[in-house]
């Protein structure tokens, strides 16, 4: 191995690097915690914890910092090189190596969760059923025939294909099975459609007297309602232009040259589930004479093709795990419902291939830490007793004086 390679290896496995990286992670965690008060979790998470670089706004100046993604990446390299490859392999360090293995497993779990998982919700009133769940944050444009009633075929455009359409940028989407093409533009993360008057200006086009009015982002990202401009053309018929807004109750309708009516809507992204959940009963209980929730639980039936229906109770700390999905009892509503009004049950739904990996990592890390701590403790106790014996002997010897005497 060359000198440069040795130097590089030495640097990436050094205590100095790990201290610097842990220091940065400490600063990012602290800043990201404090900033949540003003900017909410979602934005802070993107800025500090899902980034490679960032500029922290510290009053008049901005402080450039590495993002948590970069820090964790370098830390992983350091852990593998310093904590597993270059570490002296002895019984005394065996626990440390085990700890580092556990941390690697935990980081792998985080990586898998970050890139290969999705999450959303399912909200059902008693008597309702669904085989799809809805994203809290992501949007999609759905196009379908407006007069289809039974089986509906949808053409979907996910958010990543239009989220960059700002400042006049447009993108056109075509399909062999669509008789027209759709041009999207002016995506905005949080807005309200309002009649355009002289009281407010907008950088967006005005359509039929309405325009999207941009709003500041909400602290809780699920309360943002996105908007988008859409133009349909190329069917041989007249061009159509409209506004799409995430909370609109009815879709925008375009009639093609053949007279067929197409519905276009902007909605939270939907994920299919491998089974259907039918909501049978929702119960919630308060502690007597208080408004403190004691328990809330949902009796549901899981319906899957080829299997007999299965009754399941989902409640706090007892989710349903099935078909790679986990359904958690999250909350209930509507918030203004009276005691006798029907209530919906809100399930958080997560698909996470690394679901149990953190538990495995916990076992590994706990074992490693316990081993290391006990090893050090035993060594410390032995040394202390030897030191006491030595001190006693020295004190008993004529003319001896012990500075360490108890």
């Amino acid at each position, binding site marked *: 191995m060359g000198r440069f390679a040795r130097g590089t290896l030495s640097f990436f496995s*050094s*205590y*100095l690097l790990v*201290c610097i990286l*842990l*220091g940065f*992670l*400490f600063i990012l*965690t*602290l800043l*990201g*915690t*404090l900033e*949540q*008060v003003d900017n*909410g*979790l979602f934005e*802070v*998470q993107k800025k*500090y*914890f899902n980034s490679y670089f960032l500029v922290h706004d510290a009053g008049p100046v901005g402080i450039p910092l590495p993002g948590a993604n970069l820090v964790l990446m370098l830390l992983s390299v350091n852990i593998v090189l310093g904590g597993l490859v270059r570490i002296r392999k002895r019984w005394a360090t065996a626990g440390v190596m085990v700890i580092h293995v556990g941390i690697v497993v*935990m980081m792998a*779990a*985080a990586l898998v*969760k970050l890139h290969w998982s999705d*999450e959303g919700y399912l909200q059902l009133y008693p008597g309702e059923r669904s085989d799809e769940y809805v994203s809290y944050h992501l949007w999609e444009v759905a196009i379908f025939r407006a007069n289809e009633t039974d089986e509906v075929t949808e053409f979907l455009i996910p958010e990543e294909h239009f989220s960059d359409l700002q400042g006049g940028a447009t993108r056109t989407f075509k399909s062999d099975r669509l008789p027209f093409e759709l041009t999207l533009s002016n995506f905005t993360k949080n807005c309200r459609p309002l009649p355009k008057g002289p009281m407010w200006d907008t950088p967006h086009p005005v359509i039929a007297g309405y325009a999207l009015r941009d709003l500041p982002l909400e602290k809780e990202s699920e309360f943002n309602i996105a908007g988008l401009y859409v133009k349909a053309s190329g069917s041989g018929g007249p061009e159509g232009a409209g506004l799409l807004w995430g909370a609109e109750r009815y879709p925008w309708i375009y009639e093609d040259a053949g007279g067929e009516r197409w519905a276009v809507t902007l909605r939270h992204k939907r994920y299919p589930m491998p089974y259907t959940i039918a909501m049978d009963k929702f119960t919630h209980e*308060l*502690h*007597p*004479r*208080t408004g*403190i*929730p*004691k*328990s809330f639980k949902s009796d549901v039936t899981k319906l899957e093709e080829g299997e007999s229906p299965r009754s399941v109770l989902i409640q*706090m*700390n007892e*989710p349903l795990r099935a078909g790679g999905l986990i359904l*958690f009892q999250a909350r209930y509503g509507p918030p203004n419902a009276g005691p006798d009004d029907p209530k919906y049950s809100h399930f*958080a739904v*997560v698909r*996470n291939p690394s*679901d149990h990996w*953190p*538990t495995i990592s*916990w076992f590994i*890390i*706990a074992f490693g*830490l*316990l081993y*290391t*701590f006990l090893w*050090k*403790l035993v060594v*410390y*106790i032995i040394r*202390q007793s030897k030191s006491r014996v030595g001190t006693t002997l020295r004190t008993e010897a004529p003319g001896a004086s012990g*500075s*360490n005497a*108890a």
Partner: protein
Amino acid sequence: MKLTRTIALATLVLLGACQKEEPDAPYEPLRKAPWPEEVLARAAELPLQDRGRVKPLSTFAGFQLLKMKGSRRLTTPPPVEEKLDPTAWLLDCFFFPEDAANYETFLVQDSQVLVDVGLEGKHRRDRYTYRELVGGREKLFAKARELVHKETKDLDALERQMLGLATNLRDFEDLTHFLDFARYRYTTGGSEGLEAVFGENEESSIGSVLAASADLRALYQRLSGAHGEGDVEEMRAATRLMDELEHFLQGGGPGYALFAPPDPAPTAEYLTPLELVPEIFAMDDPASSPELAMMASLGAMAEHRSDPPRFAAGMADLHEVLTGRADARGDFSSIPLEISFYGVDYFYRALVAYLLAFLLVAISWMLPGSVWLQRGIWGLAILATGFVVAGVTMRCVIRSRPPILTLYDTILFITGVIALVCMGLELINRQRIALATSTVLGALGMFLAGKYEFKEAVNAGDTMPSLVAVLDTNFWLATHVTTINMGYAAGLLASALAHVWIVGKIFGLKRHDAGFYRNVSKMMYGVICFALLFSVVGTILGGVWANYSWGRFWGWDPKENGALLICLWQLIIIHLRLGGYAKQFGLAVLSVLGGVVVAFSWWGVNLLNVGLHSYGFTSGVALVLGIMYLLEFLVVIAACVWKLVMTKAVATTAS
């Protein structure tokens, strides 16, 4: 919060209309003898449903008194000067409200509050009787009505005190008017119909009225359909009786849920007198019902309050029915234990024992060779820690829960863990450093627990509140919450040992004993390793819990981040030490800062009021926390200055 305050305001307004006391009448106690022991014992055991759980009346009384007076003990004014426990005070509020109005029950932190409502203050921080305050009641409630619309965080200290005093005054009036319905003699004459029911009794007690409820119902039904000339008068008399009943049942505010429903009952809710009376009126044969017996006992006790034997008999009857019902529902089993828990006052005793132990530690510094002093310190430290452990264990048994459910519990638990770890360290190290540290931290912990209990009494009325649904899991409470708090405890202990090192160095203590500082440093490092073990294990366990409850292992929530900050800081310390970048001085300074990180995670993130851990949010500790941060940074600066001076001195000597 706003809703609660609005309801409180509405109650204030309602009560404002019906309260008036004579402030200038001389005090002559109406209760001529102390409450008999058996009456107090029975009253203490009465089960009451309050804030979602069934608790002994003595606990309720204790928190009410603590909230108003800042202490659970009260002495009646001269000439009697009787020492009252909370139950005796509550009995006075219920049955001798005229006496209770003369007790110094209200703690006013700043007498400016009183000046602002046109009253005269005594000392800056003093206690007042209801009679002294009643003159400013209207102004106080008017100001409270204005303040109630402000956000809590926008209230200044004086406004908070004003609002607190108004709430205490209202709560006191609720207590003293609770039994108005039992004291009052209802008008049961003036019409033929009522005479047919009550005979010649022009006035009747609550028991007699309710005993005749079926007849009254029949009378009411008969009169509802009748339209004769005399029937209007009859109806008016019957309605007057019902109005009186309603008025006095409602006069004492929302009332207290003393009456357990029969078992099995469709509801878990206990009933207040206001809720119980319609149940009695709905009965066909109320005479033999326990519901009537309960109300009649209350009436009899109110009527014979100055006749101890008859009062005691009424209390015995009430006790039998109420405890019997609670027992049948499984609500009574922990009540005797809870009474004993508050009766012994474990944490106050622990505070006293820790302080005495520290006193002996201080003496032992002057007489270092005394074996008896050492034994005394050990004995007192063990006794004090025993009180803490016993108290925490009893709280677990009473709630059938692991030791930590609230922030208050964390103070107790962390103090206990620190003391135990210190004793373990002392057994290994035998330098008397860890033992001395345990006495200081133990006393500090118990002092803070006392202060926070008062705050909880004001804000929550209890330190054993009902658990929100997500926390209803003994497994995760016993594992994650316990381990993470052991991590907090060890982090704080390391910081305390670092203070010993820094203060010793700065003041030149044991200047020529390098072994002393080496030992402290070793202990510090050992405790940091212990802290890391529990912090990491606890933090990851929290993530695993979140993964199984909310579907994500890590959500960058402030409380999670707080735990991560501790782990990161301890990892930094350990790696700096392993890499040779931090020696004794560095370890000490970093450990002091580690204490700041623990305090931020333990308390600071709860003040941010954001995130999913909303059940842990708190307020009112920002000032204490700020002072702690400031002091710790001063310690660090002092340590750095000392290091600089020493380095220069060494360099000068060398040159």
